[in-house]
């Protein structure tokens, strides 16, 4: 009796060791890191994509297609979070653009939502009342800003001032800078281009 209970006990501990060993390793792999970020229009056109995990082109295309479909099918009053495969998708619509981020299940979804919002604020500050066209025609700028804000899937710098300072410094060297400014002014004066609403915080 005693021996058999001992045996059970023992196998119990052996196993717990092993499984915790595994979960320990899994932990190394899993982090709070963002997996990818997609920007797409209401028509489903991709405007920006940033992948923080290595995936093949085929997988990326498949994910993008499925995800755009799923998100576009959702009604406006629905939750901004979405479970998709084993990922947690956080999305938000600003005017005609959808911003969509994927994180691992255990992350805090609200903070991801606010990361999106901060990125929009940064774009807004840089382009001056940003609209979808700014991002279409200057997508490389949008990428530069994103890279200053998020690096390797983690928030790098959350101070708006510092992010923009870094971008402007690099921009200073641009020969065609005059053009950029001119272009930005044009966008500002244009009545039809809508602003991405930044104050709305409806969930």
């Amino acid at each position, binding site marked *: 009796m005693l021996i058999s209970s*001992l045996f059970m*006990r*023992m*196998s*119990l*501990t052996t196993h717990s*060791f092993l*499984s*915790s*060993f*595994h*979960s320990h*390793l899994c*932990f*190394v792999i899993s982090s709070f890191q963002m997996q990818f970020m997609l920007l797409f229009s209401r028509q489903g056109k*991709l*405007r*920006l*994509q940033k992948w923080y995990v*290595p995936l093949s082109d085929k997988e990326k295309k498949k994910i993008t297609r499925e995800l755009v479909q799923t998100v576009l099918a959702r009604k406006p009053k*629905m*939750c*901004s*979070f979405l*479970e*998709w495969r*084993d990922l947690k998708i956080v999305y938000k619509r600003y*005017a*005609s653009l959808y911003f969509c981020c994927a994180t691992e299940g255990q992350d*805090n*979804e*609200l*903070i991801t*939502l*606010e990361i999106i*919002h901060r990125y929009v604020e940064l774009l807004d500050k840089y382009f001056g009342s940003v*609209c979808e*066209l700014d991002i*279409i*025609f200057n*997508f490389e700028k949008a990428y*530069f800003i994103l*890279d200053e804000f998020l*690096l*390797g899937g*983690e*928030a790098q710098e*959350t*101070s708006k001032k*510092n992010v923009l300072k*870094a971008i402007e410094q*690099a921009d200073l060297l641009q*020969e065609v800078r005059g*053009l950029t400014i001119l272009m930005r002014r*044009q966008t500002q004066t*244009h009545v*039809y281009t*809508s602003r991405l609403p930044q104050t*709305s*915080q409806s969930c």
Partner: protein
Amino acid sequence: MSDVVEKTLTALPSLLSLDSQPGSAKLSTNSKLGSLIRGITELTSKHEEEKLIQRELSSIKEQVSSPNTTMRQMKELMVRTIYCEMLGYEATFSYIHAIKLAQQGNVLEKRVGYLAVSLFLNESHELLLLLVNTVLKDLQSTNLIEVCMALTVVSQMFPKDMIPAILPLVEEKLNHSKEIIRRKAVLALYKFYLIAPNQVQHIHNRFRKALCDKDPGVMSASLHIYLQLIQENPESYKDLTASFVTILKQVVAGKLPMDFNYHSVPAPWLQIQLLRILSLLGKSDQSTSEVMYEILDESLRRAEMNHNITYAILYECVKCIYTIHPKSELLEKAAKVIGNFVLSQRINLKYLGLKALTYVVHQDPRLALQHQMTIIECLDHPDVIIKRETLELLFRITNDQNVTVIVEKMLDFMSINKEDHTTADLVGKVAELAEKYAPDNEWFVETMNTVFSVGGDTLQPDIPNSFLKLLSEGFDDEEENKKLRLFAVNSYISLLQGEPSKLPQRFLQAICWVLGEYSHLREDVEPDLVLRLLVKLLNIKSTSSETKSWILMAMTKLCSGGAPLSVPLEVSETYSSSMDTMLRQRAQELQYLSQNPELQARVLPRGVSQEPMEVDSSLSFLDGFVSEALAAGAAPYKPPHQRQEELSRSKALSLEPYGLSLPISMSSCSIADRQSPTLLSVSSGLSGDRTDHSHKGGSTTLKLDGVRRVWGKEGYLAQRESAEETAPVEAPSPLQPLVQQGDGDASYSQTPTPIPECEQEKQQLASSLFVGLASQSSVCLMGKSEQTSQRFRRKLKDPAASFPSSTQNPLVSPPSSVGHLLLDSSISSDLISSPEQTHLSSVDLTVANGEVELPDRDMKGIKSTLLREDSALAAGSSPHEELDRPKDSCLTSHLPAELSGLPHSEITPLCTSPSLDLSSCHVQKDDSLVLLVFMKSSSDYDIQQIQVQVTCEELEVSCVCDSPVEELKSHGVVVCQYFLTVKSPSVYFVLSGMMSHQIPDNSLQETQFSHRIPLTSFLRPLRLSTEEYGTMWLAFSHDTKQNLPLMMDAEEPLTATLKVLKDKLQLHVVEIIGNEGIVACCLRQDQPCLLHCRVHAGMLAVWLRSPIPELPDCLLYHCQRALQES
């Protein structure tokens, strides 16, 4: 807002097409990108777009490869290529040009080049190697922007093998005067840490410096690294707790520069990161947790603004409060926050509230009760995600009383859900619940039927396996078993009589097995009927050949009772000429056995209980055949690795001192592509390699335990006691009647206002969902809980009593089942599929496993302690950390005289009972290891009849004196000695023990404990000459290869590294010649292990060999650790 959208939409086409408008003119005509975009917008069909882009791409291709293209043009081309790629068109030709642009362009062009590289390539792309030089150059540049760009690209992707090349430069940047460079350098190191942790081991104290950086940006970047480090090993960073708390205090108090504020909340991202770190540090550690109570309270208080960001912080606070050592005051506040979330009208908050509830519900079931009505509303929420999360919550609170309702809800959800991943997940959960809490047979079988048909072929393979196992092993009650089996047979016969073509293959396989085994239980059904049903199944086109062989197997079993033989004969004739060898084999068996009832009865005994089968895995019955073949001149069998080695030996001239040459591939062999022999043996199954016998045993046992089970045997009910102890439930008023329902209907009738009908429905649902959660009252209500909960629990059996189909007889099992079951369930559990973990699984297999189920929480608890070497933990109760050090030091004086001169490990507490403290340490003798158990009385009276038993599967434990200690004087100390020798190696040996003693009132008190000893304690140097080493090397058959980090900073890296190994692991360095070294060690004299080390490409390529199968892998693990730590 919709106005705005409409305006944008109407504006878009006009902007793009009408040149008269000023803005669009600038946008579209001035750049080629603009015209490309405009061109695309004007198109009407996808086909046209494709044509246009192809045209564009070929023109780009032409231009990029032309020598006359300037870098400036190249930059513009690259932007267009990025755009095309984003639209989904491949432009692989441009990748090399992107790298060229990053290399040769001026700062601006470089920027686009780097961007293109980071978008086009991923970590494993081979072209990335070409970037290394550019990065190196830019890191050394005097232009800050170039340095920034290089660091940015490095933190996103960098070839793992090339990290050493740039590491010193990145490290240097930690001292840069510009904070942006420091910040990026920290993040680059973080990236390195993620992809190659051992490369940055040596700069840990640099991280501390980054944490103290005066720039908040640098400091918060360093937190990413700390979060990772602490996740892996919270123990070593406890000293930083106070610093993190101070930082958080300052942040919360708004001491950071204003521009870190986000919607007037100070640095929320930083706060959240810190809260995560604190929760990891405070987990099951009271003293550390106490340090943070104040700041957590403060954070909760400050976060009162009505904004998403404050809710995000609150959520993190709540998680932290529930993770660390509990404090009732804070828990109360946290519960209130969760309540606010759940009750919120905002759907995002509601979702997060449910998620938090799911997280905390096992600690505090009352919370679920408080919000039961909300939860029920959420079940019918129009948004799927809310429903899904609610089900997750319900899954956590399932017990044997509410299981039927909850499972029903889950199945309902599955019927509307279309997403495979969710279905697979939920199906697994339903199966788990059904197995654990099924109230009766009918329900169980029917639920499992639904699971099989809904789950289809996305089903986890372990679900049918464990279902069949449950049927075959049954429970203690024979009568019950028979009923269950009979019910399953009935249900399956009627299913097959319906439309079996719609059923998934896995389900059909399970049905076939059940019918084959148990259809005889139903006496009124002729085997002929079942046979005909099976034939019908065989003739369905969609039936896979795997299923077909299950069908044939079932037929073989059915034919025993002297049934008419026409059907099986026909069938076997058809399939004995099948192209599928497996099917042919089955058909032959069917034919032969159905004609030979005697043999049939011997091979397939019916009604015999599932005694463990003796499986002759060494295939000794083939010995005669083998010796015949050998006599006839056949070559003797050689295991694959031996063959390979001979092959390589014959190829090259041997220049090695002991006559072997390393295959060239070894240098490039890394953790990922390493194939350990242990694994090979398992996957090759019956390859006949006899030495691997033990592993097969290991693997069968492994597959048997429900690895996925995070819940203990007791299920949710285990929590009931704590629920009872807690104060009366404070439910919102409409729920009052419900909670009291158990006490009688009186309170129900007292409710003043009549409840509307739908409300009533909901309340009924609530009472069925939350029954058994709160108080005894509801338990009494159902009464029968205890008995039923027993029913479907698996008997704890010897793990070797294996699984249903293949145990009975190797011949009986369907062809695939040996391979299939073994592979699918034992190995597939993510171990083999992911290359990073390959070496782990082999370590894993060396340890025999029992049938184990541990509640999730326990495992987490143990995890932290496991990370420490030699940590002791008292099983069943929380580790006793209050045992203070001074006690230990006084124990040292009790070391037996003959052992006192030898090195001994730190004395660690084992367990404590009210009157007795147990501690232990081990002493290394030359030929064995001695475990000392110190028993220290802490009571005022004498303790009698103390008995301590220690066992371990992998160790031989012999006690110096077996008789119990008769008497222990008050506050005295007694020492027990145990000699330990290794039976089969393992990375760690877990000794489990049981201490019993009599307390004054003569009752016997028992306490269990466990103690962990690493393999290293058993290692002894093996002193050999090089010649002896050479002969031994060739004689050993089990080997493992891997690359380990080298101590690069030492003058002679090889010597330094080997010295570390020698010192830490007690190895004997036989000889070092040039860049190679040979090392030897042993466990006992007859358990040697040889290591061959070679410096290659900045790494130490180690090749281990031993006659003991598990030893190389285990030793490798410790070598890795030893080098990482140093």
